[in-house]
């Protein structure tokens, strides 16, 4: 038991129970949420860099008319890889990775729920990313856009295995995202520190919870889409073949039923990050906690009522278009509530304009612009004019980069000290922010004008007599400014990780529980589990942390609490490290890649997966396994 032990002895026991031993085998077997989250974050940022390099390649090609740097086939692969990488291998994984790292710490528990599933989810998304990028290196990458519309991605037009690779990469992503969503929901529902009732949950945790529910409800749609696409291609089902009773528009319905909520899968965690950063640097509790929570939930619900605004030009019934116009505009209401709450917090507080807050301000500016153009394209007549032009490219980059990447970069600056124990540079941070903010706006704002001038998306070149050359050159040069900002950011991360100044437990004097432990946190997160009596516990009790006593230290033990009031219900053992999730991911990857070529891979591939799952599930004979 943890009572009756002095701090040093307690820490020694907890280390023995929770730490992952050194060595490659143990690294593959670890189930520590922090280690897995760090891997996830680093992997996602590597994909961001790769996806960014593809964007640079596109901008070089488009810098002048009739350039011959990329041929049309390679260009198609590149814009497909750029979109797919950014959406499926960077944006969603990085937000979930932040949740994997932060949620257990913020709710005051020692590990995420289902930690082996967590390890599995990382290996799976890594395998999916490798599949996509190895295919690109082999000149076999998908070339059908990140949306893979049929019939271009179907058996009639999609040559070779390119669309199959895209579809299976999606399946890897689904598996990973769904696993993490379940972990987040259960961690938030059942592993909150005693006393952390629903009205005391940190806003970031609320946002991650809503995000997880969106994943749970939306991902089955893309699962159906990718599976039926590959079935149409491999075993000649007829889902998307109009000649046999199928429908090409069915693809768009199913894809966008997932695709639009995906925007909020990315945006809501960012909104949670913004709420946290704004409160900390305003030195006051967030203004409008309850309205913000309600706005997160409303956004999550409304996210499912918008998908048809991606399909206004396909000829749907007018009544349907009107409904989706109204719902698309309605989502501006919860977005507006959030913006006003953040501004009110800044207004009423004493803001300190450190780098994380600068990124948040950059977010507010860019996201508001993206939101306004969003209201514009929610209108059918306007959308009909600008559909598939660079106006839309500008709009969604303002929403996605403004709405997610700016807050994420602010979040990295904010939580980097917690994750690594070291501070990033304020000076380099300001340079990074300035270059990224200016570079982003100079790159993407002119795309609105290009779109209004009629330049279509996804074209690999254009004629010199069209009025697009000057703006394209300007945009390409501005993109270099944006890239230089990211370069400064990367330099700052590497420099700080290796030799940044020590951070200490709570360098920002923040209020939430992750700052109650050391930086970086030990394997067991907290020496003793906190007891919470306020939504800003570290501001309410800056000197002394109320904690529990009476937990075992000879095994990995968590406190399970009730859903609403977070009253303690049980002491539950948390799974030990295991190599089986790694093997299960390998077996699953072989099965999924094999099924690109033959449906029998699903049959025979299921056997090793079942073996791995039994190994994963079977008790190991430790004392806790035997009554």
């Amino acid at each position: 038991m943890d009572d009756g032990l002095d701090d040093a002895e307690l820490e020694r026991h907890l280390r023995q129970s929770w730490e992952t031993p050194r060595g490659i085998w143990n690294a593959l077997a670890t189930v520590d949420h922090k280690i897995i989250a760090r891997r996830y974050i680093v992997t996602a940022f590597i994909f961001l860099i790769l996806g960014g390099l593809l964007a640079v390649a596109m901008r070089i090609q488009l810098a002048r008319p009739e350039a011959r740097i990329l041929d049309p086939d390679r260009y198609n692969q590149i814009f497909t890889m750029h979109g797919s990488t950014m959406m499926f291998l960077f944006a969603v994984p990085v937000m979930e990775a932040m949740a994997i790292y932060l949620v257990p710490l913020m709710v005051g528990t020692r590990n995420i729920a289902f930690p082996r599933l967590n390890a599995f989810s990382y290996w799976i998304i890594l395998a999916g990313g490798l599949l996509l990028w190895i295919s690109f290196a082999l000149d076999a990458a998908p070339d059908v856009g990140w949306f893979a519309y049929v019939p271009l991605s179907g058996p009639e037009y999609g040559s070779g295995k390119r669309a199959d690779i895209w579809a299976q990469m999606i399946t890897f992503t689904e598996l990973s995202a769904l696993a993490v969503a379940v972990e987040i929901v259960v961690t938030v529902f059942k592993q909150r520190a005693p006393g952390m009732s629903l009205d005391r949950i940190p806003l970031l945790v609320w946002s991650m919870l809503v995000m997880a529910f969106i994943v749970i409800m939306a991902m089955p749609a893309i699962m159906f889409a990718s599976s039926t696409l590959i079935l149409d291609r491999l075993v000649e089902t007829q889902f998307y073949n109009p000649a046999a009773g199928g429908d090409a528009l069915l693809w768009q319905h199913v894809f966008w039923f997932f695709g639009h909520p995906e925007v909020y899968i990315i945006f809501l965690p960012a909104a949670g990050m913004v709420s946290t950063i704004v409160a900390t640097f305003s030195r006051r509790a967030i203004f409008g906690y309850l309205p913000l929570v309600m706005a997160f939930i409303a956004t999550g619900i409304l996210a499912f009522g918008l998908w048809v605004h991606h399909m206004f030009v396909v000829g749907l019934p007018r009544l349907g278009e009107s409904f989706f116009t109204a719902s698309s505009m309605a989502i501006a209401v919860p977005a507006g509530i959030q913006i006003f709450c953040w501004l009110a917090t800044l207004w009423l507080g004493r803001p300190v304009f450190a780098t994380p807050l600068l990124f948040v301000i950059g977010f507010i500016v860019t996201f508001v612009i993206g939101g306004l153009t969003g209201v514009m394209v929610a209108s059918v007549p306007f959308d009909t004019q600008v559909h598939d032009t660079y106006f839309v490219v500008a709009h969604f980059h303002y929403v996605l980069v403004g709405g997610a990447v700016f807050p994420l970069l602010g979040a990295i600056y904010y939580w980097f000290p917690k994750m690594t124990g070291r501070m990033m540079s304020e000076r380099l941070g300001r340079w990074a922010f300035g270059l990224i903010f200016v570079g982003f706006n100079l790159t993407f704002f002119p795309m609105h004008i290009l779109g209004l001038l009629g330049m279509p998306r996804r074209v690999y070149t254009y004629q010199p007599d069209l009025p697009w050359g000057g703006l394209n050159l300007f945009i390409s040069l501005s993109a270099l400014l944006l890239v230089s900002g990211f370069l400064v950011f990367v330099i700052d991360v590497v420099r700080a990780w290796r030799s940044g100044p020590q951070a200490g437990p709570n360098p920002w004097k923040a209020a939430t529980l992750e700052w109650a432990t050391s930086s970086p946190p030990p394997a067991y997160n907290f020496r003793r589990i906190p007891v919470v009596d306020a939504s800003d516990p570290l501001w309410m009790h800056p000197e002394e942390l109320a904690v529990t006593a009476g937990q075992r230290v000879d095994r990995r033990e968590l406190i399970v609490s009730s859903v609403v009031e977070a009253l303690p219900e049980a002491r539950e053992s948390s799974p030990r490290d295991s190599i089986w999730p790694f093997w299960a991911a390998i077996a699953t990857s072989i099965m999924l890649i094999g099924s690109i070529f033959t449906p029998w891979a699903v049959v025979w591939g299921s056997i090793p997966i079942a073996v791995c799952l039994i190994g994963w599930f079977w008790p190991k004979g430790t004392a806790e396994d035997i009554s």
Partner: protein
Amino acid sequence: MKERAVLDVSKLPLHGLSTASPTWWGTCAFMLIEGSGFALAIAIYFYLLSLAPNWPIDAPPPDLFPGTMLTLLLLASIVPNILVSRWATARALAKVRIGLIVMTLLEAAPLAPRIFEFPAMHVSWDENAYGSIVWTLLGLHTAHVITDLIDTLVLTCLMFTRYGDNTRRYGDVEDNCLYWNFVIVTWLPLYVCLYWVPRL
């Protein structure tokens, strides 16, 4: 930061059952995922139906016998399934062991009529969109039955080892029973769609 112990948790049980168990919530979350998937598949069935001039497309309605037989077998398994769950709550090891053997057989039994359901549709998966969606719905549910059958089989083996008599394992049995109920519940709308909607 100083720490002050304000709550003694030493008297709490070492595992929670039902809603006190994280695994129960995880099972519910996975049921929500799969339920969303089935709901979407049913929506697509009706979407394709709405586009087709005739439904079923170029095929007579499915034969009722195998699907109805399977439905009855599934419904018959509800009572023993509930009993096994209750025995697990009561930690009645002997009854749980026997109950799990019975449930393994009852979960395997529907696979026999399922084999005859595919030809009973009178359409192949690659003939038209109707064939594609009905084979997909049957395939999804078959995968559902098989995965739960394997889960039950492994759990049955586990309950006969020294690890069986353990609160955590009883919780697993309860969750497995919950999941089988879900397998049954998801089948009922599928049965209506597959067998009765084409007769409307």
